[in-house]
């Protein structure tokens, strides 16, 4: 169960979001710059709404009326950023294991992403597609209960991309990971029976439809 009901305001953005769904996978789509990434940041705890609540899979992350605001590091979220944000001072393996606990699924994720040969490489030497794969692996190794993916497939070859999404979908379902995805590929959403939510601006206020 996903329950978002919050108001967020800053000088350049005014947002009033209401989403209630039982779907495990949520697709967010809309014009670029409309505020989709801001919603993911709210879920991750990197930004705070002024009012309302955020409740996902039975966990109350934020509730303004009760002064609840769980710190980002305690939300067990895996976040694949649009700009990836890999740690350039660490190699690929150290990036992937950064958030991993002792009990983790490192080997499984490396198999899933098929990045065995990248492990000892320097972050700066990776191609765009490789970087995206490493970034996805880093978010998954820590066994997150929520996965946030922000347009993170575009640099991966088309041919390999569909195959990867299929495998990822399998992993998400198997591990019951609630997933939010920002993507332009609506066809994928339909294929994997995800909840599609359009984010748009109405009378200057960003809303979910």
């Amino acid at each position, binding site marked *: 169960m996903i329950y978002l009901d919050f108001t967020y305001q800053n000088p350049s953005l005014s947002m009033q979001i209401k989403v209630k769904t039982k779907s495990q996978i949520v697709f967010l789509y809309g014009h670029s710059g409309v505020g989709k990434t801001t919603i993911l940041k709210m879920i991750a705890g990197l930004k705070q709404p002024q009012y309302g609540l955020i409740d996902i899979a039975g966990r109350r992350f934020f509730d303004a009326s009760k002064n609840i605001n769980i710190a980002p*590091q305690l939300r067990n979220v895996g976040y694949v950023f649009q700009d990836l944000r890999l740690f350039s001072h660490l190699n690929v393996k150290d990036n992937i294991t*950064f958030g991993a606990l002792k009990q983790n699924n490192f080997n499984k994720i490396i198999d899933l992403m098929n990045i065995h040969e990248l492990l000892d490489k320097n972050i700066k030497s990776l191609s765009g597609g490789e970087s995206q794969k490493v970034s996805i692996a880093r978010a998954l190794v820590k066994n997150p209960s929520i996965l946030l993916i922000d347009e993170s497939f575009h640099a991966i070859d088309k041919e390999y991309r569909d195959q990867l999404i299929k495998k990822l979908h399998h992993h998400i379902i198997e591990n019951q990971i609630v997933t939010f995805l920002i993507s332009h590929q609506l066809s994928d959403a339909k294929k994997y029976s995800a909840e599609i939510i359009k984010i748009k601006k109405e009378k200057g206020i960003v809303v979910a439809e």
Partner: protein
Amino acid sequence: MIALSDYEITVLLLSIKVASISSIITFFPSFIMAYLLATKNFTGKSLIDGLIHLPLVLPPVVIGFFLLIIFGKNGLVGDIFFSTFNIRISFSWIAAMIASSVMGFPLFVRSIRQSISEIDPKIIEAAQTLGANKIKILKKIIIPLSKNGIIAGFILSFSRSLGEFGATITFAGNIFGETQTLPLAIYSSLQDPDANLIVIRLVGISVFISMAALMISNRLNK
């Protein structure tokens, strides 16, 4: 290679001892201060920022005078040390080290602060979402990414200590084997009409060490 005399060796070893211990001790408060200044906003920040920079702009003799006032037998801190531990700080190598530390502190803070503020806050957000708490972020992100600033800070404060004169002679005196570091030894030898050769040799040693410190820092920064 010209062999060093016992006098030169004593002066040299003392200088290196004072410079290295003072830079190591200064590192911890410098890092904390640099971290606070680079990442936090608090009331009185600009006042603290100004106070930290005082040793850079005040004449070193004035700093030495303040240190005497604070750590001297009649001073605020010195009195406590004298009455409880029966220790006198002024005119000891500890005093020379304190003088060096105070003079090196702003240089240390500046260079660490610079490199901490260059760290992209987005990277820190990423680490947070990966479950890292403040200590882990400090250990795994901030310290490694400010490594160059830390090294530069070490070299700067070490070199500042090797060149420190005014605060040291005021607060620690010019005592051979205890507080007579290279610049003080050069100063003393300048008073002696027969010591021209010693002056030249001491100046040579001083130039050599400073060059070596710079070269090591360039190496480490690569």
